[in-house]
């Protein structure tokens, strides 16, 4: 028997033990409340991730079509090979077969097979025939899923414009990136509930989310013009041993790009193959740099000094402001003194006395310097801005470069003089083309673009794109004067190699020396448009570092002439002479 005395303290102690235990149990219950109520979402989400195996169903990427409906970027069925860790029965065989068939290193495949995850991708974009062959091995735990791979039927055509896609079918460069949202669609998925061994629980069923295919994109490019321009560019590059040749063709009325060529192009179906002659022992970084250079679209990503083609802008500004008229007369002694500088004309003997039209035909530097100086820095600069030259053109391609121009405060007469004939600043080719187009189309600054509309799977139009147009950057009168002056340049002046029998063509040549001066490297270019009285098509050809003769009038103008000879009839532009005969 417990004595009463003992009993009291024993009872107190036992009560203490009980109370202590109860308090701890209730504290643990508090912890449970925290876990079950406040952390419930966090943990149940993580648990669901663990329980559900997701297999995605790729959405077919939208196609890219040219203006006539020719498919420029398409999809082809390919396979993705994955391993399901828990279902692999014979890892060694799986590793052996996959590394052999897929041409992967054993360590790479081993890491994938031995990684503890619900599903691990080994390789995507496997040709369907190879995927079928792997399927025939009937390896447990190896899954071959079919999906789509981008396929470019014309391979090199417009490679730097269209761009290509990566392993997940996402756009890497070009229109594929710019229109990613339109093209990509929404991938679907099959969610299956599995146990820890990855076995699917049939009772739990599966959730299936259907993929939504991407929309087709119609672009303004004309495959025929693009491929003919590519041929011309390749010929010119070979003939002149040039570094590169670019040709841009645009509808100056609305900014639609009909072609954009940058040779050398690359094969869109094999975009990671280095250009020929690349050294074999490159570091990863050097390799990537080389690829980036290969993928670069010089027409929009790079700037250059436009040279004499920029005189179109100076002339338009001068005419618009009234500091010069086509009839104004000038005298060129072969040079002009600006402040303390003596700037020479390309014709050192001088062009003598000439009116403004002939000065343009002769591409006489002192005359254009004079026009620039008459405008003065501030007015010249305001025209530069008004023409949109300080802004980007807004073309629907990624990575457009901005203009590199003096700040107005830093511009003196010498800088103004050089800018007036297209030196000492840099713009992109597409900027020059767009600005020239805006000057000859009646003064409407258009936005150059490729994207025209999107189509659904049945070919119905989903959206027509519209692009901003800024009106009145020059008057209609100035625009008409410019058209007629530039037609004279081609018919009788320095651009006569750009003339096309039977058509009224306007244009301007340029021969710019690249920096640093005296390197002997030139850029020959020609910008032309037709018909000269109502421009429907405008082209800019740029030959980078031609060997031998390097004058724009002799190197670049013939390219545009050949181009126009073929595409003007193709575009249904009537011959001037026939027109005349009819009337």
């Amino acid at each position, binding site marked *: 028997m*417990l004595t009463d005395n003992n*009993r009291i303290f024993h009872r107190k102690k036992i009560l203490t033990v009980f109370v202590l235990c109860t308090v701890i*149990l209730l504290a643990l219950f508090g912890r449970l409340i925290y876990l079950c109520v406040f952390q419930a979402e966090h943990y149940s989400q993580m648990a669901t991730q663990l329980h559900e195996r997701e297999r995605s169903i790729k959405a077919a990427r939208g196609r890219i079509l040219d203006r006539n409906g020719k498919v420029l970027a398409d999809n082809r069925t390919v396979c993705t090979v994955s391993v399901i860790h828990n279902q692999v029965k014979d890892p060694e065989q799986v590793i052996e077969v996959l590394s052999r068939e897929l041409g992967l290193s054993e360590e790479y495949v081993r890491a994938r097979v031995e990684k503890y995850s619900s599903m691990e991708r080994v390789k995507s974009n496997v040709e369907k025939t190879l995927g079928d062959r792997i399927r025939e091995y009937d390896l447990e735990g190896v899954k071959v899923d079919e999906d789509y791979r981008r396929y470019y039927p014309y391979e090199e055509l417009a490679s730097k414009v269209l761009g290509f896609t990566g392993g997940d079918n996402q756009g890497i460069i070009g229109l594929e990136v710019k229109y990613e949202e339109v093209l990509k669609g929404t991938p679907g998925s099959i969610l299956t509930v599995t146990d820890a061994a990855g076995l699917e629980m049939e009772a739990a069923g599966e959730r299936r989310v259907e993929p939504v295919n991407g929309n087709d994109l119609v672009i303004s490019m004309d495959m025929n013009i693009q491929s003919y321009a590519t041929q011309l560019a390749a010929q010119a590059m070979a003939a002149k041993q040039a570094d590169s040749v670019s040709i841009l063709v645009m509808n100056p009325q609305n900014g639609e790009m009909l072609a954009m060529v940058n040779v050398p192009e690359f094969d869109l179906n094999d975009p990671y193959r280095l250009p020929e002659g690349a050294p074999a022992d490159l570091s990863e970084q050097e390799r990537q740099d080389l690829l980036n250079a290969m993928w670069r679209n010089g027409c929009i990503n790079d700037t250059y000094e436009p040279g004499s083609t920029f005189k179109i802008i100076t002339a338009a500004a001068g005419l618009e402001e009234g500091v010069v008229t086509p009839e104004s007369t000038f005298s060129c002694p072969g040079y002009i003194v600006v402040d303390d500088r003596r700037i020479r004309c390309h014709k050192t003997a001088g062009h003598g006395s000439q009116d403004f039209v002939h000065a343009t035909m002769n591409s006489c530097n002192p005359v254009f310097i004079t026009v620039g100086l008459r405008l003065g820095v501030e007015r010249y600069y305001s025209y530069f801005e008004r023409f949109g030259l300080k802004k980007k053109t807004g073309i629907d391609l990624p990575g457009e470069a901005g203009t590199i121009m003096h700040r107005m405060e830093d511009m003196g007469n010498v800088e103004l003089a050089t800018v007036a004939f297209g030196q000492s600043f840099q713009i992109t080719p597409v900027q020059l083309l767009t600005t020239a187009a805006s000057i000859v189309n009646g003064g409407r600054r258009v936005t150059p673009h490729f994207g025209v509309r999107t189509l659904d799977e049945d070919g119905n139009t989903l959206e027509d794109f519209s692009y901003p147009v800024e009106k009145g950057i020059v008057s209609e009168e100035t625009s008409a004067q410019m058209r007629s002056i530039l037609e004279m340049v081609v018919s009788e002046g320095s651009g006569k190699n750009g003339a096309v029998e039977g058509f009224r063509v306007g244009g301007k040549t340029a021969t710019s020396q690249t920096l640093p001066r005296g390197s002997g490297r030139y850029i020959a270019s020609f910008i032309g448009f037709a018909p000269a009285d109502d421009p429907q098509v405008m082209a800019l050809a740029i030959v980078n570092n031609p060997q031998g003769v390097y004058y724009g009038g002799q190197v670049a103008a013939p390219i545009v002439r050949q181009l126009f000879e073929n595409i003007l009839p193709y575009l249904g532009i009537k011959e001037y002479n026939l027109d005349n005969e009819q009337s």
Partner: protein
Amino acid sequence: MASRSAARRKKEQSEYFFDYSLLFIVLFLLGFGLVMIYSASSYEAYQSYQDQAYYLKKQLVAVILGLVAMIAVANIPYHFWERFYLAGYLVSMAIIPLVLTPLGVKSHGARRWIEVPVIGLNLQPAEVAKLGMILFLATMVCKMGKNVRTMKGFLLMVAFPLPIALEIYLITDNLSSAIIVLGISVLMVFVASPDYKKFLIMGGAVVALAALAVFLVVSGSDFLKFRGGRIQAWLDPESDLLGVGFQTMQALYAIGSGGIWGKGLGQSMQKLSFLPEAQNDMIFSIICEELGLFGAIAIILMFIMLLWRMMVIANNAPDLFGAMLVVGVMGHIAIQAILNIAVVTNSIPNTGISLPFISYGGSSVMFLLAEIGLVLSVAKRIQLKEL
């Protein structure tokens, strides 16, 4: 005559106390445990043995054997056991090293079981040791009388369980059972001694040691190695999802996805082989997943009631020996329930402790039921007029 005998019978029936509440709580926990074991293990059992009820059947056998043992023990006056106190201690000492002999059974990567010849049941010597220790200390408290209150007596009482706890820890590498044996002993000594100060100091020392261990791990010392990984996983289980933190995280997933109302009985996802030991140490997390917060509070309340009944019995025990026996059993159940729930909720570092009466485990449930038999036996000796 008839009325006299009836009155006598009535007197006999009511003179002594039988704690039906305790019995029903235990039966409820056992029944609930069987349901949960079936729910938690059927998938895994079918995968491994093509028999969904494999674990249920084994547990059912152990429960029946345990109930038989409980009834037997309940009907034997508890003083009968007093004479075996030294034998109990020595048997506990002797039985643990048997795991190293061919009788030892290795499971879950540890040698913690021995196969009982003839019957073929696996027995965990640590369970024997817990019961042996309760009996031994209860007897010693009575034998030492007031000497328990001296420093010498105190030290002696604390020293008794140490060899066995060390054996369990070193030979079977079972830290949690060692802690339980020590914990039971400390609680019994605490009740036996009128002093508080010594125990506060002891408690303070344990907390300080634990804090030091955590500090050492956090500061990057590799002093603790294996246990260090567990402490790291305790502090931030998500940092090592597939390693040491795996089981903890799986348990938390189960608890978290159960929410307030649970997914419903049988609807657990985590038992589909995601959560290791789902029917065993981690069964509480499956209860939370299937029955939610309400299932959890029901179980916790059942344990609190169980402890309360044992407190009542201990307080009214006819003698100190009986009281100490009940305190030992009470301590045993309380410590295991608390540590188990604490581990499952990641309140303390992960260590393998089963939930009394509910977790799968034959020897555990049999010995627990035998201990409940002891408690019932003590309860039976309570004269109602004492209440």
